């Protein structure tokens, strides 16, 4: 935390931003005011489309041409709105610097990293010599933690990992000692252990420059750990602001409360059901009367729909925009947001037996649900020693194979009815490859999958195993209506047109999409609704196992909770087995019964959910769990964090022996040389749920 004074460096008053669009205009920001004080970190949170990025770009004067900006942005005593672009150029970088979301696309691919940092150094010091600028660039790269900065400065962006590139971007932001750094979702595109590193680099930048920071993010955990004060945005307006403690512990706007309630937490609130916020944010291409949140708000009354609440103090500097903010004192999310019953899930369960089975040999779902409860039930799916290697072609004259990419290495697990196995790991861990192997979209290099004790046949699995993909926009054919999409698997497997259609409508109803909406196309639905269509489609053939490949990671928090609840309800009533693949540990903790942690294609730790998350034993699991930010400022700040060094090694020719040893705090720390040679020479077996030579058993 930084020492905040009350001197304002950046003041935003009644800022509006509107974009022209096909019909008219979209009001992305509808009158936003806040001030950023010297040296503080101000967290700006909100879901996609709430106007937080547009606000940042408006401050920088970097909105696309055509965007209309109103109101005022003052940097110290200088008004920034209305400045000519060349005047604005003198502000950018020197007074206000910015870090963007996607480090993969933020650096120009045709220039070296050193050049791009040096360019920032020279932007406001044209008289500085080229060599001096490069020297300063190297110093900056060292500061943000790029190893061998001097050598690596000549490398091109594609030769750096995502985390390293984001550090370069931070170095660029630091280059001219700015007074304000705007970080727009700086860690969203990164893995959680890398996120911790980048947040560290950001802290370094703050300490070095003394800049006030505007941290824009949708991740409440990051805000809880990093920010001094918070601004919550909704539909282009600020709906609440205050210190982190005020906003997190006593929110006075229902939206904030709902957001907190819809968040699954790693610190486990013992299976408490999430409290999603119904509906979606309002469209911004037409005027909004009254409170923008009213249609989704359980407390809304007539006055909310006619009169827009002003952002007024509720307690000192704690501001909220709600007519009934006084009613929220001391209330928990579940008190305000009634848990919504999943629409017609029970009907599906009932129908599962009653409706004539489409697939002739489909096992009646109800029967499975009533299967053995005591002890370890017989698994439906058994994966044993799965191995998947991809060939990598070299670039030499004859392009001989350069090696093999070890995507999945000796992974075994089983899965029983009504159970959820969470598969967690960062990018490159092989979790999505496992999904493909299970769905027969890829051939395993070794090992195999048994279904009810028999090997999977490539076509026969369709009725028992189905998959829900990460991005519903990508996994639904844009040219088919919702009803056709859900009916397709039935049609392929021999159902008649009418029969398939009737069942499709019923399935859509069971995921909460009833009536005329079944004739709409995917682009006419919101993200959460699209994912519901994907789930309905996966259920069409009455499978017993659902592979869920990051099913909620493309969704906003409030919507995500809704989909998670739906999945839980479906599992309860249909007795489905879930293989839940995710990078988000909090979600897995919420939904899974058992967990397997993957690193570079190998399982490093597996076991009962609470055991793994509460008492992680493998050094990697420990680091992973400690890196996940908690949406609880006091807990988050009190935590001890294990920050891993370096990046995940390439899965092409991975490290010998234990694959984690190159980043392992244990290996790099207290082990003796003799012990280390064992790590390098011998692959640790998965014994008692942990694959480490040195864990206390």
């Amino acid at each position, binding site marked *: 935390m930084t020492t905040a004074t009350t001197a304002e460096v950046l003041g935003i008053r009644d800022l509006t931003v509107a974009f022209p669009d096909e019909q008219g205009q979209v009001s992305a920001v509808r009158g936003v005011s806040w001030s950023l004080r010297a040296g503080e970190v101000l967290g700006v949170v909100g879901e996609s489309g709430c106007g937080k990025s547009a606000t940042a770009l408006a401050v920088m004067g970097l909105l696309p041409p055509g965007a209309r900006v109103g109101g005022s942005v003052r940097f110290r005593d200088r008004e920034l709105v209305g400045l000519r672009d060349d005047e604005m150029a*003198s502000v950018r970088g020197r007074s206000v610097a910015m870090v963007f979301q996607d480090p993969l696309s*933020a650096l120009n691919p045709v220039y070296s990293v050193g050049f791009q940092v040096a360019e920032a150094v020279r932007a406001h010091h044209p008289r500085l010599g080229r060599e001096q600028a490069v020297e300063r660039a190297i110093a900056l790269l060292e500061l943000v933690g790029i190893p061998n900065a001097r050598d690596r400065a000549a490398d091109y962006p594609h030769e750096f990992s995502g985390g390293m590139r984001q550090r370069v971007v931070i170095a660029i932001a630091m280059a001219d000692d700015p007074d304000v750094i705007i970080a727009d979702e700086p860690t969203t595109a990164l893995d959680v252990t890398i996120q911790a590193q980048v947040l560290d680099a950001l802290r370094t930048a703050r300490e070095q420059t003394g800049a006030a920071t505007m941290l824009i993010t949708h991740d409440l955990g990051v805000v809880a750990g990093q920010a001094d004060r918070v601004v919550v945005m909704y539909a282009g307006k600020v709906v609440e602001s205050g210190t982190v403690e005020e906003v997190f512990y006593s929110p006075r706007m229902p939206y904030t409360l709902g957001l907190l309630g819809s968040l699954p937490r790693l610190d486990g609130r013992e299976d408490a059901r999430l409290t999603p916020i119904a509906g979606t944010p309002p469209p911004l291409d037409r005027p909004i009367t009254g409170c923008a949140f009213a249609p989704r708000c359980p407390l809304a009354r007539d006055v909310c729909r006619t009169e827009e609440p002003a952002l007024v103090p509720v307690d000192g500097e704690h501001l909220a925009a709600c007519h009934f903010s006084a009613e929220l004192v001391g209330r928990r999310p579940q008190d305000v947001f009634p848990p919504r019953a999943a629409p017609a899930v029970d009907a599906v369960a009932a129908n599962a037996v009653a409706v004539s089975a489409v697939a002739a040999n489909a096992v009646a779902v109800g029967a499975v649900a009533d299967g053995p409860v005591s002890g370890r039930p017989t698994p439906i799916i058994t994966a044993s020693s799965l191995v998947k290697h991809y060939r990598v072609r070299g670039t030499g004259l004859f392009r001989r194979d350069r090696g093999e990419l070890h995507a999945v290495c000796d992974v075994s697990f089983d899965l029983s009815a009504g159970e959820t196995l969470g598969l967690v790991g960062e990018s490159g861990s092989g979790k999505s490859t496992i999904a493909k192997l299970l769905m027969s979209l890829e051939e395993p290099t070794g090992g195999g999958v048994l279904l009810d004790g028999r090997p999977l046949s490539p076509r026969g699995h369709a009725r028992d195993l189905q998959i829900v993909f990460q991005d519903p926009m990508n996994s639904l054919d844009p040219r088919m209506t919702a009803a056709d999409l859900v009916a397709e698997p039935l049609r392929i497997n021999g159902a008649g047109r009418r029969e398939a259609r009737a069942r499709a409508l019923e399935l859509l109803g069971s995921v909460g999409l009833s009536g005329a909406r079944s004739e709409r196309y995917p682009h006419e639905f919101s993200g959460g609704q699209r994912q519901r269509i994907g789930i309905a489609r996966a259920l069409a053939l009455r499978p017993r196992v659902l592979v869920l490949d990051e099913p909620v990671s493309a969704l906003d928090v409030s919507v995500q909770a809704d989909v998670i609840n739906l999945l839980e309800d479906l599992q309860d009533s249909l007795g489905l087995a879930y293989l839940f693949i995710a990078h988000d540990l909090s979600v897995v903790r919420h939904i899974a019964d058992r967990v397997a942690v993957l690193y570079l294609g190998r399982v490093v730790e597996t076991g009962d959910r609470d055991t793994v998350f509460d008492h992680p034993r493998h050094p990697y699991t420990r680091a992973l769990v400690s890196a996940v930010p908690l949406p609880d400022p006091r807990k988050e700040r009190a935590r001890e964090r294990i920050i891993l060094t370096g990046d995940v090694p390439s899965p092409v020719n991975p490290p010998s022996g234990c694959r984690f040893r190159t980043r392992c705090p244990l290996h790099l720390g207290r082990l003796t040389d003799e012990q280390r040679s064992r790590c390098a020479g011998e692959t640790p077996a998965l014994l008692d749920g942990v694959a480490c030579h040195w864990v206390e058993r």
Partner: protein
Amino acid sequence: MLAYVLRRLLHTIPIVLVGSFVTFVMVSASGDPLGDLKAKQPPVSQAILDAEAHRMRLDQPLLERYWRWLTGILSGDWGPSVKRIDIGAEIWPRLLVSARLVTLAVLLALVLALVIGVVSAVKRYSAVDYAFTAVGFLLLSMPAFWLAVLLKQQAIELNQATGTTLVYTVGEASIPPPPGLWPTVLDVLGHVVLPTIVLAMTSFAPWSRFVRSSMIEVQQSDYVRLARAKGIKRRTVLVRHALRTALVPLTTVVALDLAVLFSGAVITETVFQWRGMGSFLLSSVRDKDIYAVMAWLLLVSLIVVVFNLIADLLYAVLDRRIRLG
């Protein structure tokens, strides 16, 4: 890098071989080289026909003819001509004449494409942009031969009105050339102006559209936004970050269009009555002069292949992401 060049060359050889064989079969089947001779009145004797057929290698099977042609090329023998000309001696000077036209036209078209593409991208949806778009579409829809005749006529009228010859409308140079180096250069330039304009005008439009759309795309990219966030002036960002990156793919687009430009050159040269590759091709096709046509196709397609290779290499040098793989 060297491995990449070698591999690309290795890949190119089978293409050239297959391509040349297919063309050889196609050209051989396109007509009887002795057709005109056989149709002569009074008829020529069978002995003469046989001798001529032997000279044109028509008494050999197709595969053998191809093999002889291929091995002949490697030793500098372009094969016999119906018109009894030395194909090699005839084609090289003509290639130089046409290369002059194509090179200048490519340069002019590139300049036009860059200026117009960048200006329309920067001033998107402005009147200037719409005007350039309209002109581009008009030129895209304009037959080269029609524009050539039109400009030729305008030039003739201009010359008549001024009483001098500002630009020449016939031939690629005066015969005999004016004395002295400087007058010769001026003479050649005077001849090359109109055809270059025609060829460039009818070629640049797709390129300027390409520059425009890739400039627009690049301008919306994160790295251009970051460059501006550094506080660099818009113009500098435009040139250093946007244009430079947008230009890289243009190299391959231009190289791929080289064959199209040679097509345009054939038409343009015909209108301006140049003694270049155009008239050589057309007369050879009319005379069914197989080996002359083959020489033409081989030379031009080799030029296209070589420039495509160069463009690919250039791309790899300019954009390091291309893993030369």
